[in-house]
């Protein structure tokens, strides 16, 4: 059932999908929108609310679509704008919302705007990009893709000037000091929103504006532009279309992207993700609880986006050097597994295929404050192939069945955009949707159950968080509260059974109801509440006080 509230994103679970990787309907070895339409029932049955589509625009694909050469089209391998419209309508018919990636910061160097811009300083598009006769400007800005780029400036031989790029040199940054660029980008947004799109995941937003003597990140001028975009979209589209920021920054630096509830609706919580892995490997709750002490409150209409993995490397930019070294030690024992400042692996192989740890991290993903984002394939425990280069190893075809090409496509194996995973542990013959759908205890069905349980309470998306501090630091326990409802989450980060005593005296008389099985646990007394947890075990409790639900509307006593 569609959540019709304007702030639907606060309750939503997102599902991140690459069109090319999901289902190939036209038999060319590349996934497409027609295939995605065929797969919508699966996505709906998983129990998510919103599909996030990675870049689907025409592109030379030198950065997997994040190098857009036409904001108004669909990459021919994926279909047409009409196909996209059919997909959007089909998703809406299933009460699924859809957001798409939008790269605001830069374009492909093949984009007609850049081609015109480089052709002459007199072109109408001359100032659409950041040009300079010197490559010394903005010298305080860091280089992000340290493995491939030596400078943020590249000399364009045609125009004879340097152009600014924070990412790959084939991705020139747009010049947001030019109001024509702002208008052009708003028109791009209108084009897709007019078709019914529910919002954008805005890529690389901290870098829109450059100023000398600064890091050229998170500048006030950038925020002013983003606020303007938000105001226009709210005004023209009724307030339920969302903007999700990709700002790989510390929470206190991300906080301004929410503004006063007038900038982004959502932003990823980047630093939380590596600390979930750290806490798990260290069997210690402190990396997780500590990051929340550094997470500022956000406006009530805003929401964090939480994730375990995505289409990029598991970024370790937001950890200390020591933490990064430990993460590499624990999760990337081969050099091929590392990329930039991160680890290019999927969830299941990161956790050594340990089902209990996969479920535990998903438990945390679904119960910590924010809206969870599930990366396609992680719900069945898909593997990766770190030898495919760049981040391709985590972008392989979805594994539908043990049929040819994992049921993804009917073409010859060699024609696939990337090979399917075939290793004995994570290969498609062992890990696929069809097999797991039939197996009640499969990871897929466990994920469905967890997602279904999450839907029963708005506390997950809307409640605050209060960590309990049990003496056993291997057990993470926190309360989530919203309105009159309180949930208690208890998770064992350890690979061995653990006891824990929780101070729940404030809830004396309440009965913990385990939410996955609706089992009533012993009533809470003033004495510490004792629980024992199996290896990586967890509980989701709803604390029901006597009289809960009797809070009157004011009409009950005489309603008949």
């Amino acid at each position, binding site marked *: *059932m*569609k*959540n*019709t*509230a*304007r702030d639907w994103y606060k*309750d939503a679970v997102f599902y991140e999908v690459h069109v090319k990787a999901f289902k190939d309907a036209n038999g060319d070895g590349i996934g497409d929108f027609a295939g995605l339409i065929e797969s919508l029932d699966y996505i709906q049955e998983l129990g998510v609310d919103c599909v996030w589509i990675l870049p689907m625009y025409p592109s030379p694909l030198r950065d997997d679509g994040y190098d857009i050469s036409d904001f108004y089209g669909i990459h021919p391998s994926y279909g047409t704008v009409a196909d996209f419209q059919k997909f959007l309508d089909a998703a809406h018919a299933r009460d699924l919302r859809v957001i798409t990636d939008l790269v605001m910061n830069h374009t492909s160097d093949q984009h007609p705007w850049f081609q015109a811009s480089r052709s002459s300083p007199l072109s109408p598009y001359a100032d659409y990009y950041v040009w300079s006769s010197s490559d010394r400007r903005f010298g305080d800005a860091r280089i992000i893709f340290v493995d491939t780029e030596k400078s943020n400036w590249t000399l364009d031989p045609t125009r004879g000037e340097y152009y600014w790029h924070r990412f790959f040199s084939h991705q020139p940054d747009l010049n947001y000091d030019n109001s024509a660029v702002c208008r052009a980008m708003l028109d791009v947004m209108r084009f897709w929103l007019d078709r019914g799109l529910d919002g954008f995941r805005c890529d690389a937003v901290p870098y829109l504006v450059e100023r000398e003597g600064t890091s050229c990140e998170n500048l006030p001028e950038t925020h002013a532009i983003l606020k303007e975009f938000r105001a226009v979209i709210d005004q023209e589209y009724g307030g339920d279309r969302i903007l999700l920021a990709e700002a790989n920054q510390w929470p206190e630096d991300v906080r301004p992207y929410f503004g006063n509830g007038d900038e982004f609706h959502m932003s990823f919580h980047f630093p939380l993700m590596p600390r979930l892995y750290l806490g798990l490997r260290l069997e210690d709750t402190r990396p997780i609880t500590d990051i929340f002490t550094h997470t500022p409150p956000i406006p009530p209409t805003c929401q964090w986006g939480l994730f375990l993995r995505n289409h990029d490397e598991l970024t370790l930019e937001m950890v200390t050097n020591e933490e990064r070294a430990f993460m590499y030690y624990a999760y990337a024992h081969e050099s091929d597994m590392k990329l930039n400042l991160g680890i290019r692996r999927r969830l299941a192989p990161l956790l050594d295929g340990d089902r209990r740890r996969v479920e535990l991290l998903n438990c945390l993903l679904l119960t910590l404050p924010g809206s969870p984002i599930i990366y396609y394939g992680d719900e069945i425990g898909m593997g990766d192939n770190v030898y495919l280069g760049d981040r391709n190893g985590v972008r392989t075809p979805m594994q539908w069945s043990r049929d040819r090409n994992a049921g993804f496509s009917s073409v010859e194996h060699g024609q696939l955009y990337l090979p399917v995973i075939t290793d004995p542990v994570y290969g498609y013959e062992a890990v696929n949707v069809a097999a797991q759908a039939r197996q009640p205890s499969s990871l897929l069905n466990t994920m469905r159950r967890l997602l279904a349980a999450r*839907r*029963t309470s*708005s506390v997950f998306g809307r409640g605050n968080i209060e960590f309990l501090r049990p003496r056993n630091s291997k057990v993470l326990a926190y309360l989530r509260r919203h309105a009159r409802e309180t949930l208690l989450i208890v998770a064992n980060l350890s690979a061995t059974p653990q006891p824990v005593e929780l101070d729940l005296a404030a809830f004396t008389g309440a009965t913990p109801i385990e939410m996955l099985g609706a089992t009533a646990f012993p009533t809470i007394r003033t004495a510490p509440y004792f629980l024992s947890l199996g290896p990586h075990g967890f509980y989701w409790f709803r604390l029901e006080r006597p009289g809960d639900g*009797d*809070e*009157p*509307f*004011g*009409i*009950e*006593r*005489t*309603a*008949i």
Partner: protein
Amino acid sequence: MSAVAVGPELPPDVDRQLDGLAPAELAVSVLTYNNAATVPAVVDAVHAGLEKHFTGTPAVLINADAGSSDTTVDRLAESGLPFVRAHHAAPAAQLGAVPFHGVPGRGAALRLAVAVARRLGVRALLVLEADVTSVTGEWLERLLRPVLEHGADLVLPVHARHRYDGTITNLVLAPLVGALLGRRLHQPLSGPRALSARALERLAAESRWPESGRSVADLWIAGTALADGLSVHEARLGRWRVESNTRTADLPAMVAQTLGAVFAMMDEYEDLWLGTAAGPPVPVEGPPVLPSDEPVQIDVERMIGAFTRGLRDLGTIWEHVLAPDTLGDVLSLEADDVERFRFPDDLWARVVYDFALGHHWSIVYRDHLLRSLVPLYLGRTAAYVLATRRRDAAAAESALAAVADAFEREKPYLVDRWR
């Protein structure tokens, strides 16, 4: 549903009590189940009413008891009036469930009272609730006078109530029952009522008494009276106050019990409503009594919150119950802005009719179905409060009349899909 165990033949112990009784013109029946704390107020009202309005008229007090373990029966027996004690068995499930009206086996109790009154040959039977302590002597006069002097066969009460009291009755039961039976009854499930000798005769001969203890009998009596062309009136009474430990304040239970009773009546007694057309208005007797208009605290925002949570959580049930168009219209209700929230009457009527059809066809487990209506009812009630809270009493009445109109207008929708 089967007929109750107590047939036209009275139990031997009741027979014995009747043998020794002098003839009576009036019978007052009190249906009880552990009401020792409140029956004295009822007895006082009976005394006051008889002395003031029916002086010298021989009367008898009939107690139909479901097996009280307290002193209820003793207190009634001490009333000083000629007394008949009739015990009836109550289904164990109803005893355990403690239904809202507090008298398990209500159908059996009513049937007993009717049978005893008929045997006594009274001109009128008055039925009173044991836990309604706002009863006064005036109620006797208002309910009995139309029978004794104006040719009424069944007199139902119209209590003076606050505009936001009885929202289940006003927004669901009354418009639904009115549309079904073809006559608008203000409070069709309210307990107090008076019956004429003719009605007693007619009902005593009826073999289809409902067994349910959950108000089906009350509805069936009204439906049978109307279908048989008996004269049904309403009488304005004073305020309605109940003091009971057994009536629930749990809305889902209330909705399940009351609406479940109407739906059960619809299933079992199609002949009473399926082909029934709207008839003339039911006469309402007695001077109007101004209802309380004191400010009340109603949490409209929370009600709308419950409605929107229902949209989220109960969609899988509603998708089975509601017709696609109805569901679509419900989903498109704008609940974001509390002040502007509306719930159109025609849509509401279709929602209730879809639930009736879902119950009829057992589309989902019936108790789940009934309880899943609650968020919709809360939404409709919130819309009613929002539409009337800054308006006068007449406007509130007119809003309720519009609801009744909608149910009557949409009745063909129900009938077309019933078979």
